[in-house]
């Protein structure tokens, strides 16, 4: 390792450039409509859009409001419209947006509570309306379980991708049908409906049918695919909805049978010890 006479610059805090954050702000107490405010933010290595928002709040304008929590792309709180696409603010580094101007708006297709905070209540109601929980006939087992339901790895792969939804709301912001149709369930609710219908442990397909295949359900999806493009967790809701359509189509034409519902895994009556596994050492604390 050679030491030079040059001044030691800490790569972690060196300012790379300055960008302009143009944020659509709205204060319900004082504003009739949202308006844009600009801030100049210094960018250091690895800085995400969320870090930029924190910098503005700490150094320039403490009235800026948004939702965020985990800052690592798993909670889904910081969904907003950044430079032309709905994105998670914590998942996008400023330098990767390749622009000196960062345009931030609250998520489209949701009411705005304040600044960058969308009203997700309607979103959650649509989710609830598809009954996103396991529905089975053996209610006593559900209430007081005695064992596990058996599910093979193949059966798990059929639906596990759709279970990764973090309810961030980006997909409804991207969907063209949600833009005009208030009653459309949206890609998130429909993908979660498929997640349960495809789950072999679930027996509630008939209960959900009426809501999913109503006039504002799965048939109002036209495979524009914007939802899957913006999903940060690879849930691919467009795929789930097409599988939903395929499933009901095949079932109505009697080309596919109703799935067999997962049953309790058989109890193992006699445990036999594997002789190759050595005994555990004696406890040191008596």
């Amino acid at each position: 390792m050679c030491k030079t006479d040059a001044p030691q610059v800490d790569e972690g805090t060196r300012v790379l450039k300055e960008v302009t954050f143009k944020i659509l702000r709205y204060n319900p107490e004082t504003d009739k409509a949202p308006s844009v405010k600009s801030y100049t933010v210094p960018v250091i290595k690895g800085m995400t859009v969320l870090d930029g928002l924190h910098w503005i709040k700490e150094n320039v304008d403490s009235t800026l409001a948004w939702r965020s929590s985990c800052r690592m792309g798993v909670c889904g709180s910081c969904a907003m419209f950044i430079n032309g696409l709905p994105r998670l603010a914590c998942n996008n580094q400023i330098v990767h947006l390749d622009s000196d101007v960062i345009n931030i708006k609250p998520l489209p297709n949701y009411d705005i509570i304040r600044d960058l905070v969308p009203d997700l209540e309607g979103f959650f109601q649509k989710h609830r309306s598809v009954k996103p929980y396991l529905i089975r006939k053996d209610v006593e087992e559900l209430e007081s379980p005695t064992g596990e339901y058996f599910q093979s790895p193949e059966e798990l792969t059929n639906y596990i991708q759709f279970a990764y939804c973090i309810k961030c709301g980006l997909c409804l912001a991207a969907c063209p049908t949600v833009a005009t149709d208030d009653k459309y369930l949206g890609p998130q609710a429909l993908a979660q409906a498929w997640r349960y219908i495809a789950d072999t442990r679930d027996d509630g397909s008939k209960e959900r049918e009426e809501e999913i295949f109503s006039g504002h359900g799965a048939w109002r999806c036209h495979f524009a695919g914007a939802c899957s493009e913006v999903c940060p967790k690879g849930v691919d809701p467009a795929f789930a909805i097409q599988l939903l359509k395929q499933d009901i189509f095949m079932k109505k034409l009697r080309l596919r049978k109703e799935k067999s519902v997962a049953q309790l895994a058989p109890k193992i009556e006699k445990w036999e010890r594997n002789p190759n596994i050595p005994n555990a050492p004696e406890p040191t604390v008596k």
Partner: protein
Amino acid sequence: MAEEKKFKKNKLGLAGWFAGGRYGAERYAYILHRISGLGILFYFILHIFVTGSRIGGPEEWESTISTFKTPVFKFGEFLVFLAFAYHALNGLRLVLAELGFGLGKPTRPVFPYVNSIRRQRPLFIAVMIVAALIMVFGGADFYLLGN
């Protein structure tokens, strides 16, 4: 708790169909599918009445269609032909995709995620190429060969 004031006019509306953001080709393919469908439907309703005039006999028919032999109407018909070529081939892709074919199988999501839109992209390109070929042949017939 008092009813909070919210800004309720944040739906993109019809603008969201055309310019909602920087999305991929399939979102705009869907809008073009709708526009072409509306164009064809509009032409079709008129077409029912125009072709219905043949009930008046051959002279009635000839006089009716002579009004439509001008360059403006011919161009309009050509646009309908283009719309049909696009709508039919894109519709073929939609029927396949909405019945779950050509989209692959569900997998465990591993970053970088490849979604079903990417997986059906080859099908999309294929139908667009066939549609373009049909449009070229139609254009040749309309404007280069014969009448």
